[in-house]
């Protein structure tokens, strides 16, 4: 058992993947000598060399496109996109090449890339450093999209993602990088990569969150408990595929659902969950599904992000609306 930060858990996951599989390489901007702008890859280049922990030229399409080429030769690249808002230059390589090659070639070619993207806000940064682009990728067939919310899941899910034969978009809630927990790096993962986790059982309302909003939802549930309301919190962990079974089972018990994410609500991932719960739990629902997300605006300047990001109050307001219905 080791006390580690979220970032440290990711670092250990990559270290062990590098140790266990000579075909694993890390690629990205500033990940080598610097150890990444968040230090997630700290010391790995020193220990594994510049040909396994590769400081690439500064071009995101180039990173993903060349990683794809390496994968065609049997490599298993783990790419870091420095910030969420920097992934768009690589969008074509991800959705047109990485996501589709297995289908295109009738299963003859794999692209087992893991694409790590620090995402979400709450760190007081400038434009393009706080976005939540997960819906674009969850909408793309051929990709798997996951997001851990704890150091333990960060470790195990990254190991699982790297080992997976399909491409995985791995969203890291950057404001949780400094969260600490005790993690057993030698234990087997307790869940498959694409299973949701009930983080807090409850009876009155189900709150579904992922990534950075899981901790917010848990804080809201603590406050609700003081007010005598029992909130069940589900950490989705995987967006694609979506473990709708765990969500539906919960909603059938509580009859009420609140979904929260940082991304804008319109066309956001919450809409997919709401639609599926509508299909599968219609006769159990006691209230309309509530969504709590970012406003439908470009990510605001950091002095305003506290109004934009879902917080406990906004989640509790939605819980109240759900219970009042």
């Amino acid at each position, binding site marked *: 058992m080791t006390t580690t930060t979220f970032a440290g858990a990711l670092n250990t996951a990559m270290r062990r993947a590098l140790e266990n599989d000579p075909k694993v390489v890390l690629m990205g901007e500033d990940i080598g000598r610097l150890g990444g702008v968040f230090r997630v890859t700290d010391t790995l280049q020193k220990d594994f060399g510049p*040909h396994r922990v590769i400081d690439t030229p500064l071009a995101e*399409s*180039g990173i993903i496109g*060349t990683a794809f080429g390496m994968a065609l030769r049997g*490599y298993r690249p783990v790419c870091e996109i420095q910030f969420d808002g920097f992934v768009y230059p690589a969008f074509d390589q991800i959705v047109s090449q990485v996501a589709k090659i297995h289908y295109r*070639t009738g299963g003859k070619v794999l692209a087992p890339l893991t694409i790590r993207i620090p995402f979400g806000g709450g760190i007081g940064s400038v434009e393009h450093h706080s976005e939540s682009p997960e819906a674009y990728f969850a909408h793309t067939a051929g990709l798997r999209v996951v997001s851990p919310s704890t150091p333990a899941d960060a470790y195990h899910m990254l190991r699982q993602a790297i080992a997976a034969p399909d491409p995985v978009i791995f969203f890291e809630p950057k404001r949780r990088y400094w969260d600490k927990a005790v993690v057993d790096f030698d234990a087997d993962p307790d869940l498959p990569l694409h299973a949701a986790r009930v983080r807090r059982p409850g009876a009155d309302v189900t709150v579904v969150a992922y990534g950075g909003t899981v901790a917010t939802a848990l804080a809201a549930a603590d406050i609700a408990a003081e007010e005598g309301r029992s909130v069940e919190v589900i950490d989705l962990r995987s967006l694609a595929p979506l473990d709708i079974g765990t969500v539906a089972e919960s909603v059938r018990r509580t009859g009420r659902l609140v979904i929260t994410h940082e991304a804008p609500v319109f066309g956001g991932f919450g809409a997919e969950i709401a639609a599926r719960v509508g299909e599968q739990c219609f006769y159990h629902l006691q209230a309309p599904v509530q969504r709590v997300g970012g406003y439908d605006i470009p990510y605001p300047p950091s002095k305003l992000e506290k109004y934009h990001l879902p917080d406990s109050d906004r989640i509790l307001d939605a819980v109240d609306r759900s219970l009042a219905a």
Partner: protein
Amino acid sequence: MPDRATVPAPSAPPHRGTLPDRGAAPRGRRPGTDYPVQLIQPDGARVLDREHAALVADIGPDRLRELYRDMVLARRVDLEATALQRQGQLGLWPPLLGQEAAQVGSAHALHPDDYVFCSYREAAVALCRGVAPELLTRMWRGASHHCWDPEAVGMTNPNIIVGAQGLHATGYAYAAQLDGAEIATIAYFGDGASSQGDIAEALGFAASWSAPVVFFCQNNHWAISAPVRVQSATPLARRAYGYGMPGIQVDGNDVLAVLAVTRQAVARARAGGGPSFIEALTYRMGPHTTADDPTRYRTAAELEQWARRDPIDRLRRLLERESLWDEEFAAEVGERADAACADLRRATLTMPDPPPSALFEHVYAEPHPLIEQQRRELARAEGALS
């Protein structure tokens, strides 16, 4: 490190893609940088260029005839596929008419373990790599998204996103370098693709990594309706120098010249010398694809000018001049092409449509609940209909 000796003097006027028809090199200027490398004139006479001729000195009568045979095969198969599209058997076909020398010459420079990253017009390269003609139409008919097994051929399937494959070739080449494998990759792309950011990034990454990749640009002068001057204010090969790799311009309708310069670039890559850029000046004699109408944007006069530089006629004239041409050879070449076209036509006409269940095959390598659910839904719906 790039071979700095090949970097041209900046004072040389930019070459605008016109091909001098001449027999000897202009004095004081260098083939490949000041004007395109040429080894066969349009009338079939050899060009005096000792440096580049030496690269193909081993190409004797048999290999010359083989190059001719492969070019005719490519042309006939391409015309057959175009005809199949006109007859409603293919959804689309991108004709390579006019580009046979650029493709066959470069493909003949490759070793079996080199890896080809193509665009979508390289059917002639695929044939030279050993792809059976009957496989070429699968994706253009809509029966699948691919034609052949890439690993078996050492060549990717047609890539439709313009320029994306430059990065794939670079990544593969870099991986080969890490493996210690002495191979080259070659990325085929066009003058239009040269404007794509992915090609720019690929040139940058390849140079930074000294990756064993050959960037083979077929400048066929037209990106659908946009002439090459829309893409670039400078000869495309010149761009290579800015990235730190040699760039060379070659007469892309001269199969020997293309073979020579590609051999040079492949040898350099395989020996650890890093990337190179080849601009093969050629011409797309047909439409961009069968859905295009080039009469809307280019003149008959331009077409006639390039018809006089036809790559197959040119090699035939050389064979005639060197007494390597006879009716028996011509008949043999024709029969081989006839057989390939018959194979292609038969395979296309008898190609079964994939079953509806194929919709869901290989979306993921591992089972995916949504895909499995939708597979069952379609099966149920199909069952209800039948």
